[in-house]
């Protein structure tokens, strides 16, 4: 349970602040990290935090926000499942005069404040790394996240933007690995069968899948011939980068996103001035700089 007490942060009438948080998926390590930071900071600030897991369903998320509204929380932190589909939640919260802060990704309706980074950018960084590494020439395969989800769509979009800039960089195959390491591993095994050493690089929409690809390539003895890049910089990913099996990952600062989100939420709820948009930049992680990301 995530509620904690302390005397620091109280509303004018002396009651403790209540903040509701709905997270995209508590089964995703990155999101769990964002949440843990929110919870930690909420504890420090003496805020009662109610966390719910949307399990990647925008519908569920909208319903959870409705529920927060009915409970008259003081502020809502939403880690949106979808750009468009999670928007009604924002509309409803604003209509009920409850501040809502989007963390990590956006919705089409503007919330009270936004804390996070642009997913499209992360894919641009990853694909740019591949392009540089291959000298702008070679065959790339891409492993998608769950088809149709915001993160998948945006990461695909960013990757394709870069691919367009490098006409000699060919996307020879792309398929979904559903964010899952085992699925991505099987997919990669099958691709190795059909393309063999024609593959020069792999871009996976998250580290889990990237690590699955790495495993398949290692088993096939091809790892040192293929560049693998993914996004998230989860501990396993960082370790792999350090070992040199994963060539690069893109670091999204979970701690900062979480901290800034709860900070902003408390400010708004207390009627203090706040920043409407806090952008936390992505960072490319390679063997060269991996040490600074590891705890």
């Amino acid at each position, binding site marked *: *349970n*995530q*509620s904690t007490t302390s005397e620091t942060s109280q509303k004018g009438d002396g009651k403790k602040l209540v903040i509701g948080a709905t*997270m995209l998926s*508590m089964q995703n390590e990155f999101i769990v990290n964002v949440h843990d930071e929110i919870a930690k900071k909420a504890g420090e600030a003496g805020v009662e935090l*109610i*966390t*719910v*897991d949307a399990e990647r*369903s*925008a*519908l569920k998320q*909208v*319903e*959870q926000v*409705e*529920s927060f509204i*009915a*409970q008259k929380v003081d502020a809502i932190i939403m880690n949106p499942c*979808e*750009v*468009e*589909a*999670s*928007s*009604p939640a924002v509309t409803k919260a604003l209509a009920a005069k409850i501040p809502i802060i989007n963390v990590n990704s956006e919705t*089409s309706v503007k919330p009270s404040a936004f804390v996070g980074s642009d997913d499209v950018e992360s894919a641009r960084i990853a694909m740019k790394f591949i392009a540089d590494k291959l000298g702008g020439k070679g065959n790339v395969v891409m492993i998608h996240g*769950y*088809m*149709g*989800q*915001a993160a998948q*769509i945006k990461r695909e979009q960013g990757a394709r933007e870069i691919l367009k800039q490098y006409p000699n960089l060919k996307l020879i195959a792309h398929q979904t690995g559903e964010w899952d390491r085992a699925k991505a591993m099987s997919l990669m095994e099958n691709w190795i069968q059909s393309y063999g050493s024609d593959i020069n690089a792999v871009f996976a929409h998250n580290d889990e899948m990237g690590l699955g690809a790495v495993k398949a390539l290692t088993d096939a003895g091809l790892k040192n011939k293929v560049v693998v890049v993914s996004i998230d910089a989860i501990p396993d990913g960082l370790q792999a980068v350090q070992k040199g099996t994963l060539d690069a990952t893109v670091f999204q600062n979970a701690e900062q996103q979480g901290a800034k989100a709860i900070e902003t939420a408390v400010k708004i709820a207390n009627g203090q001035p706040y920043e409407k948009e806090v952008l936390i930049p992505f960072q490319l992680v390679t063997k060269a700089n991996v040490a600074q990301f590891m705890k």
Partner: protein
Amino acid sequence: MKNALDTYLKPVRESYNTRVRRLGKVGIVIAFILICLALSLITPRFLTVSNLMIVVTQVSINALLAFGVTFVIITGGIDLSLGSMVAVTGVVAATFAHPDTYPVAVPILAGLASGLLFGAFNGFVITRSKVPPFIVTLGTMTIGRGLALILSKGRPISNLSDSFNFIGGGQLLGVPMPIIILILLFIVCAVILNKTVLGRYMYAVGGNEQAAKASGIRLSTVKMAVYTMSGGLAALAGIVLTSRITTGQPNAGAGFELDAIAAAIIGGTSTSGGTGTMTGTLIGALLIGVISNGLDLLNVSSYYQQVVMGIIIIGAVVLDSVNQPKN
């Protein structure tokens, strides 16, 4: 003669049969009431009009699907394609629901038509081939997911008209539209099941397929009907969902089939066919909804929520079966 007839007519009103039936549902109703009571005592936030409205609104989509699958299960079948039908019909409806294009009837009818068609396809394959419904609808579940992605090119379809968004988001006399739709469809489905020949034939086909056949009932007609209706109800669920989140999502509804089937079974529909009621299914759906809402209200951590949810569902059905008379 007159008198003899009367003594036969009386038991119709209060027969052993109906008493047992009522008893059969008592268990799950008790479980439901107990859970509601417990929640009201633990948190004052539960028993408020606004929260109850939210619960019922949230339940509506699962309930619509559960009504459809109740028909199907009563005939002894199963429908795993519900979630995919929600996605397909939602995407189809959204495609026609942009502002200033078509009147709001067009997306509704298009969505509905696609659902009926999808359901009819399930029914067609199941009746023409000897492939078990489990496999057919598992297949069409996959096919449907693919279709939804193809139709939407893998992207959510947004920018929908206000009149369309009213279906899931609007209110009529203070009552959210999904609740109104839920009540309407509950009545329609209950009437079909209890008061029409089709409903009677569903019980017969599920209760003893050979007997139904020997009585001259066309099995394929009944089965076609239930799968098509299941598709139609899934379409309504898809439309409500799309309108509620103001987007047609190709990946909407994943896993919904299990919740819907759970609602039906918790409500007393037997997977072996031949028994089940719409009221039971409605209670089943409400039960799931109330538990999920309560766990959120109580701020149970999401990992433990799953554990508690599972335990309560099993517990509720255990309580129900303890209350059921032995045959």
